[in-house]
């Protein structure tokens, strides 16, 4: 944290002493540095720029490695962010570098919402750090800090002025992240045009109130070089990972029929200045600004949004704890109420359903009774008919028997008569 120079000002009861001999606490900075070496460092860069403007190539060139990026198409429907983390090491320093690239920035027809995914991403990183900080059991020193430390904004080398998309985006981001504007593909602009371009850009930024990152001037060791560099903003960069033979050395360069643009030649572009400022001189300051300014601002806004204050209406200090507890009770009471409501609703529904089912049951029962009755009636009717039929049948049977009897009788009567005649005939 930047000092409020606690030790320098004569506090009450703090006096300066001179030491009579070598005590040994001058090794403290070394102890601190050794601890940091063991822990490793973390650095996160966000690159915003249109598709194809050279973000990935510049990252490759800056860190001297191949980050295995793949080209994106121009047809992305929305701006997306792609973050990739790498572990780099130089001598005994381990760096965990995260490079976040925008995908599809500036490709849409309607660019009004282009900045939103970027802002959301930055806020998400702040939010997760805030969450970790507010936890009860937290481990901040082990936490992988994903907050964006530096934002390289790639300006198209039109040679005229900033695009309105550029202004709008940078304005939205300047209070959330350290913005370092760079002019991409600077080998397409001539020296004189470049000079005018830079002046135009800086004046547009100033007139629109965009706060870009200023290299710090408070440390005498680097104040001078930082002041000079502040005057060279925005850096006009060229990126290249291909090597071309110039003289008897192989240098990183871009080869054209009319000449070779050397990346590390300060006359050709400002790449070396960018690398120097971003990495060699101000990396720690970028991280510190992110933590003490941008993150604190986010935290303050977020907590105030949630209703926390440092002092209440009577200007008595209100502890975060109390406000939090009050809100928590509110929330829990609300939760309880909702739960009760839901329970009641559930009970009601069950009752209703039960009643419905009972009703249906009753209906079914009555229909069943009805059908049963019908069935009984029909059965009775049929029985009746059957009886009648039986009666008919039996009476018919009787008649038939009677008729047969008669017939039989008449036959025998006739036979007897015949016999009698026969018998009488013979006399």
């Amino acid at each position: 944290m930047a000092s409020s120079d606690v030790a320098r000002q004569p506090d009450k009861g703090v006096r300066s002493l001179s030491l009579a001999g070598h005590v040994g606490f001058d090794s403290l900075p070394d102890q601190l540095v050794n601890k940091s070496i063991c822990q490793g460092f973390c650095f996160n860069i966000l690159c915003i720029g249109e598709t194809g403007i050279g973000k990935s190539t510049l990252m490759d060139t800056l860190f001297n490695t191949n980050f295995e990026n793949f080209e994106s198409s121009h047809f992305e429907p929305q701006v997306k962010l792609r973050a990739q983390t790498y572990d780099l090491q130089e001598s005994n320093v381990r760096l965990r570098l995260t490079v976040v690239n925008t995908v599809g920035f500036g490709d849409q027809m309607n660019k009004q919402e282009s900045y939103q995914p970027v802002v959301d991403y930055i806020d998400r990183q702040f939010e997760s750090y805030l969450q970790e900080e507010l936890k009860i059991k937290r481990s901040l020193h082990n936490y992988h800090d994903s907050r964006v430390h530096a934002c390289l904004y790639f300006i198209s080398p039109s040679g005229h002025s900033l695009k309105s998309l550029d202004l709008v985006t940078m304005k939205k981001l300047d209070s959330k992240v350290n913005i370092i504007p760079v002019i991409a593909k600077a080998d397409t602009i001539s020296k004189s045009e470049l000079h005018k371009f830079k002046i135009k850009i800086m004046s547009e930024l100033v007139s629109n109130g965009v706060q870009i990152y200023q290299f710090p001037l408070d440390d005498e060791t680097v104040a001078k070089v930082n002041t000079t560099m502040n005057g060279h903003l925005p850096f006009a960069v060229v990126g290249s990972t291909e090597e071309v033979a110039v003289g008897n050395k192989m240098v990183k360069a871009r080869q054209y029929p009319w000449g070779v643009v050397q990346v590390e030649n300060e006359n050709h572009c400002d790449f070396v200045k960018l690398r120097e400022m971003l990495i060699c001189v101000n990396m720690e300051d970028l991280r510190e600004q992110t933590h003490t300014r941008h993150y604190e601002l986010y935290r303050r806004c977020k907590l105030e949004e949630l209703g926390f204050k440092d002092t209440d209406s009577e200007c008595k200090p209100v502890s975060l704890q109390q406000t939090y507890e009050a809100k928590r009770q509110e929330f829990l009471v609300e939760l309880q109420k909702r739960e009760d409501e839901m329970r009641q609703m559930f009970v009601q529904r069950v009752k209703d359903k039960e009643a419905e089912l009972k009703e249906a049951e009753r209906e079914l029962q009555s229909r069943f009774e009805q059908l049963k009755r019908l069935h009984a009636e029909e059965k009775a009717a049929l029985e009746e008919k059957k009886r009648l039929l039986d009666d008919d049948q039996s009476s018919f049977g009787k008649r038939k028997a009677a008729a047969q009897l008669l017939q039989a009788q008449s036959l025998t009567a006739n036979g007897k008569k015949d016999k009698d005649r026969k018998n009488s005939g013979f006399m």
Partner: protein
Amino acid sequence: MATSVGGLYGEKAGGPMLDFSYVGIDAILEQMRRKAMKQGFELNIMVVGQSGLGKSTLMNTLFKSKVSRKSVLATAQEKIPKTVEIKSISHDIEEKGVRMKLTVIDTPGFGDQINNENCWQPIMKFINDQYEAYLQEEININRKKRIPDSRVHCCIYFIPPTGHCLRPLDVEFMRRLSKVVNIVPVIAKADTLTLEERDFFKKKIREELRANGIDVYPQKEFDEDAEDRMINEKIREMIPFAVVGSDQEYQVNGRRLLGRKTKWGTIEVENIAHCEFAYLRDLLIRTHMQNIKDITSSIHYEMYRVRRLNENNTMVAHANGIPEHHLTAHEM
């Protein structure tokens, strides 16, 4: 700025890719150093022990200047207070461009009463108050850029050189306070012990500390890796350091050295053959100072914070009749 021409090794998925051009990542070490030098450091040391054990002298010897309270105040003869008092005094000291705000916290009255029960309580309260102050600053909405650190980083406990074993007061104090602060026990006025007596005493003390489960600095459970453990084991075999303090210089063998002159010889304070002051100084100042501060802030302070935030939750919950299963361990 560092100008070592190292290789840059990038590792991702596959093996390392060697690329012999200088990027400048290691320049961050220099940047950190510059920032640290500009900010300055803070160190708060507490000394605890009965009166007359040489606490003030030892502090003066450690920092080679009159840092103790007695040296600052005019009254050299003070009455022993009736209860334990906590008095702190701060100094700005500087060495080779490194500025430090040193605060020495004295505890007059400790162990001096007839009934010494609970004499650690004011000390415990003081230490917890410092944690509380830091916590309050930390949870403010509008926070200071740099929260002033008044937490006690290290507590030097002075054991009287009886030569036998620890007294109940020593055991009780160290048992309680080793849980909230880094304790460095030292045998005071070690020039009254012969080397054999000293070794025996130290062994006895280490046994008793182990038997009572007291973990003094460097704590076993906070060793980070094998290298750490190796270094710390060596230190653990030497504690408690048998120290002699002095702020007077004498001529010995043609050199001016800090020491105590007696009829039978001069005890050189910084001679490791005579006493272990140099080891204490190296541990506290030259090698482990940052580590002491780190353990205070990332372990002791965090434990205090967890306890405090949890007890607040349960207190409020009970007051409102909310059942405890509603509270989750991870919310603030």
